[in-house]
């Protein structure tokens, strides 16, 4: 008889594990408690995938915790850790080291239900095997693969070296019947009498004997069956089946093959095997030519929003789109651009939106009009992403779209717009649009607009900028902006800039001579920044003169400007 498990008060669980309600802590000795903690960690880790994505930080914490606890358990066990699996408990050397009666949570119940009656861990258990066990348990907790495998078959397949188990057929029907059961009602089917005949035509026998198989040959066979060959096996299967479809005497029909074709497609997408997918296309085309069913052929339905969504899931966070994918999409019929646009519209997740945006950008270069039409009515995130895509797909159309979008209040969009317009700022409408953006509410947009204008050769831009500075000086011009504006003005028209800066620096009224207003200060700031960039002695003189009249930050700015001028001069002299 075993003692009743001793329940202890558990310390406060971590936030992550609070979501995964913990089983009870049990254990009558230090060793038993260590084993209990190990099993709790194992159960929690396996259950984590019902709540979290495997890459989640919480899962990482659970795995680290499991690693620590399993090592400790094996250390205190001082030998093999042999667990008896009961209905809702796990026992070690007769002591209960795990108990959980809630079936959905219970590790013991999962094992017991599938027929496992003993689970053992040997010293020297490698982390890779622990991970393998977590994999298997997580599959059972998340309820996948119930048709093909159960715990016992998965454990058998894994061929663990340091994890052993004993299993029985899970359920047993009790008692002997007093009478025989009724026969199954269906007429039993028999193969034809000449099954597997005729036998193959074989020649006269050849002597056979023991010959060692070459290691390379064995390795080649193992490679055929390895996991890495899964994509090519899938493709070959579909090709084999499609070959059968082209033989009109073959009993296979398109309806039989179709579900598998789509399953393989989805698998290859999930694996990122777009090159393998492409291999299917020609065969699907040939098959489609002979497909007389009323619905569209398999290939015709190979595209669509659902597979595109899977593609996005696969490529999430990966950066650029693989070349293979684009070639695959070219080969598969369907309006992928429209599908991608629809998905982009509906998606909220930022990483997925990034993928859809890239897709739209890659697919949209031949149909920019579709993008611009959508963009015309888009707002917020969608407008941003569509515009970004259009910028890549069709730069010229992007400029036109930017002119329409500049008044959208979204700062991020405005930034993107400025970036696009910067490339065409020589054009008067573009310059005007950028100038208009100088009045944007977001400083980043204004700064970007200023930078964009620096490339313009239109003198009217200078005047507009100058007016802008004067207006903004009264309405929240920041010093950073003032600096940028000064630099741009100096660059646009040095002579005019000198005159302008000189004008700003020389006070006109008595009051201005006595008191420097904030707006004046900003104008001075702009002027100093600009003068620092103007070549020649006059700007230098003006700067020195102003240095003597300035104070505080402005004084420092003057100094900095003069120092910079020295450095630049030295550099010019050096190069000369």
């Amino acid at each position, binding site marked *: 008889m075993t003692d009743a498990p001793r329940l202890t008060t558990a310390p406060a669980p971590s936030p992550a594990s609070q979501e995964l309600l913990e089983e009870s802590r049990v254990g009558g000795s230090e060793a038993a408690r260590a084993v209990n903690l190990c099993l709790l960690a194992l159960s929690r880790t396996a259950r984590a995938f019902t709540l979290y994505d*495997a890459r989640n930080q919480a*899962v990482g914490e659970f*795995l680290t915790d499991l*690693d620590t606890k399993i090592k400790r358990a094996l250390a205190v066990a001082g030998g093999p850790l042999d667990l008896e699996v009961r209905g809702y408990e796990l026992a070690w050397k007769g002591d209960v080291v795990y108990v959980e009666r809630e079936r959905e949570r219970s590790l013991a119940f999962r094992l017991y*239900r599938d027929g496992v*009656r003993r689970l053992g861990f040997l010293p020297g258990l490698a*982390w890779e095997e622990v991970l393998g066990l*977590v994999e298997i348990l*997580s*599959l059972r907790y*998340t*309820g*996948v*693969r*119930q*048709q*093909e495998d*159960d715990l016992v*078959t998965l454990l058998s397949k*894994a061929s663990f070296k340091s994890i052993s188990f004993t299993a*029985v057929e899970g359920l047993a*029907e009790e*008692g002997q*019947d*007093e009478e025989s059961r009724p026969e199954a*009602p*269906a007429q039993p*089917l028999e*193969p034809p009498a000449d*099954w*597997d005949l005729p*036998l*193959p035509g*074989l020649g*006269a026998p050849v*002597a*056979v*004997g*023991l*010959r*060692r*198989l070459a290691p390379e040959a*064995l390795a080649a*066979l*193992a490679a055929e*069956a390895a996991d890495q060959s899964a994509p090519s*096996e*899938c493709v070959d*299967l579909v*090709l084999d089946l499609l070959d059968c479809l082209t033989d009109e005497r*073959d009993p*296979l029909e398109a309806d*039989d*093959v179709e*579900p*598998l074709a789509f*399953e*393989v497609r989805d*698998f290859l997408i*999930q694996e990122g095997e777009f090159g393998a997918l492409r291999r299917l296309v020609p065969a699907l085309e040939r098959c489609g030519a002979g497909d007389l069913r009323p619905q569209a052929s398999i290939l015709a339905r190979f595209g669509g929003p659902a597979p595109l969504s899977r593609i996005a899931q696969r490529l999430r966070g990966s950066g650029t789109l693989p070349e293979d994918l684009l070639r695959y999409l070219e080969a598969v019929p369907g309006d992928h651009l429209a599908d991608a646009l629809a998905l982009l519209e509906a998606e909220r997740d930022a990483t997925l939106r990034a993928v859809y945006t890239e897709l739209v950008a890659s697919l949209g270069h031949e149909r920019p009009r579709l993008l611009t039409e959508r963009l015309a009515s888009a707002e917020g995130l969608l407008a941003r992403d569509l515009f970004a895509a259009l910028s890549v797909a069709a730069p010229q159309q992007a400029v036109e779209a930017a002119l329409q979008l500049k008044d959208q209040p979204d700062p991020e969009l405005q930034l993107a717009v400025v970036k696009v317009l910067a490339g065409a700022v020589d054009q008067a409408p573009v310059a005007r649009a950028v100038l208009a953006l100088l009045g944007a509410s977001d400083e980043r947009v204004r700064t970007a607009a200023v930078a964009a204008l620096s490339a313009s050769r239109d003198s009217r831009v200078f005047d507009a900028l100058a007016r802008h500075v004067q207006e903004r000086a009264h309405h929240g011009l920041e010093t950073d902006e003032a600096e940028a504006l000064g630099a741009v003005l100096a660059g646009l028209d040095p002579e005019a800039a000198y005159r302008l800066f000189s004008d700003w620096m020389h006070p006109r009224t008595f009051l201005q001579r006595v008191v420097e207003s904030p707006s004046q200060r900003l104008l001075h700031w702009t002027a100093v920044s600009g003068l620092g960039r103007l070549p020649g002695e006059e700007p230098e003189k003006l700067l020195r003169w102003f240095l003597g009249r300035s104070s505080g930050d402005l004084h420092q700015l003057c100094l900095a400007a003069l120092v910079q001028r020295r450095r630049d001069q030295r550099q010019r002299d050096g190069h000369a």
Partner: protein
Amino acid sequence: MPEADLQRAQERLAHTLERARASEDRELMNRVRDEGFQLVHLLNGVLRMGHLHSLDNRAFDAPVRDLARALGRLCDLLGTLSLITIEDQVYLNEVRIRMDERGGGGRELGAELALHGLGGLRVHAGPSEGALRQLVACFARKPAEKEPRAALRAVLREQGLDFVEALGPFRFRLGGEAESGRARDPRQVLQRAGAAVEEAFQALGHGRLLNPLPARRAVTEMLAAGLEREGLEVDPQGLTPHATHTLRVTRLSLLLGRELGLAESVLQDLGVAAMFHDVGYSARDEQGRPPAFGHHPSQGARLLLRQRGFHLSKVRRLRAVLGHHTPAEAGRRRRPALMARILRLTDDYDNLVRRARLAPAQALGRMASAAGSLYDSVLLQGLVNALGAFPPGTRVTLEDGRSAVVVAPGRGAAAFARPVIVIDRAADGSRLPRGERVDLARSPLRLHDEPPAQPPEPAASAAPPPAAPHDDHFDLVLVEPAPPPPSLSAPPPLEAAPTPPLALRRVRGEIVQGIPIRLMHDLHREKRSGRLIFDDGGQRRALLFVQGNVVAAASTLPEHRLAALLLRADLTELETIERAQADALRRVQPLGAVLVEMGVLEPEQLEMLLRAQARLVVSDVATWEDGSYHFEDGDAPGLEEDVSEGLSMPGLVQGAVRAIRDPDVVRFAIGDLARVLVRCIDGEAEARRLLGPSEEALLEQVDGRTPARLALGASGLPPDDGQRALLALLALGLVEYAG
């Protein structure tokens, strides 16, 4: 744990789960759970109503209708439904129905069933509403006091309610328990595997979905029990021949897979694929006919394709089934999958051994002629290595004369020719009361014809060994004789020493004059079965013995062949013979049997020709003065052998002796005439009847004291006649030299 390791671990788990999630048929699983919940709820409801209302109450209409529909839908989806209640849980075809989450039903249904001693129901087909009402009525009856389950079953039978089976209570099996050794008994393991094969065959043929889990469990059990190599020669009882074949192919495939070192997960998939490799034969066309041989792979694929949800195992299974009759090297086509190539080998091997009744070694030899074309050379060599020199099922003879059957191949290269055997016959051929299992690899016992252990030859080259040209005029199958082992020496020449009966355990040697007749005589006397083959380096002759009688003969000499005899006897034309030969080759049938089938020959005519052929061959070989001979144990005629009812050995010998024209050959064969002649007590009566006057005259002079020379003189026969008569008496076993 280092960050990189943690990341790798998480990526691995993410990949596994994403792959698994992508593959699961979630729709199916959710549907099973939802519909299963409805089913339990409805069933529980109508059973309880049955206690309260009479069956004709309108209150039953809606629930019975709904229940009938629910059962129909689930049967369409899953085939046979197994609804099991255990503790407070309910399982529908292995899927737990979450009654506790949604409240109610599980425990109540269990209680309802328990009233009649039941733990579950198995439903084979969706019932009509009327049948359901009858079922409810059966459950509504008061349970019998004694044996309620049996009573309920009887009632169900009486009512004709064959859509449902009542199952006993279930419990979770305890660890370590052995229900009559069920968990570990190999026979039970094989029985379960066989049941899984038959169940799958029936289920798929009747249009139900495939459930691969029972097959996978069976394969796991077989692998754990080592049943891919143990007891391959014995089949479980009670299975159909086709199911038995399927099980053998499965075990052979696993044996080969192990030999190749395939991973456990691959072995599992291979075993499951093998268990389903012939399910195509369960399909039926609109007229209810099964598919032809050529279409059964596609039909099998068609049935397996009904299983929804991606799984790599499913892919492998489909490729294996689809390609298991495709040649391994298919030219420009895609090469068949590894599992398909394995199944091709094991399927053909089993059919050649079991259906065409080739000796296992012979089957392998013939398959080797197609290595590199029909069969993957490496895999074929793997199968040869795995099965050993004496594949399971081969009958072997020990040095001490006892006979055994091979039950498992030896493990590893060193035991290639040292298999596991069960000795079941004594040296005199009588059956032993209990078979003795011996692992020859660990035993001092030796086979009587065992070559010394040799290291395996170097790795097989990519090119297959050159196939022996198929000699379509060769009526008997001959195997290249292995070189004689150095430890054996040829028997001494007859004239050099007193001649004991030939030790037929040393069944190879060099021919000297008279040896062939003596060999035939001894084989007849010892009632041996096997082939006696003579080879002079250019020509070959073979005689097939069954229980000491010659039943077939073969020769490389054209005029000895059946075709030549047919033409000589003017029984048919060459064109007919050629057509029959082509047919025989294609169908791997004997030429004579084909000719009888075609109506060209009567059976009696064939028998006459076969006897004539045997006499020709015997007479010919009796005159050989050099060459070599060897004898191979085994009593199965080859695939293309026409077999006679058995020729009279004395007659053959008599004819052989009379055929010897050269008196020197006779003189040489009778040896030293100074030896005393004695009569053989067990000489055959038939031999006596064949004696001519010369032999009779000489026999009268044999009294056990008179030397041969004097007996010849006293007979009064001319020297040549007398010596020929003496040779005949010696060859017929009626006299022998004393000492």
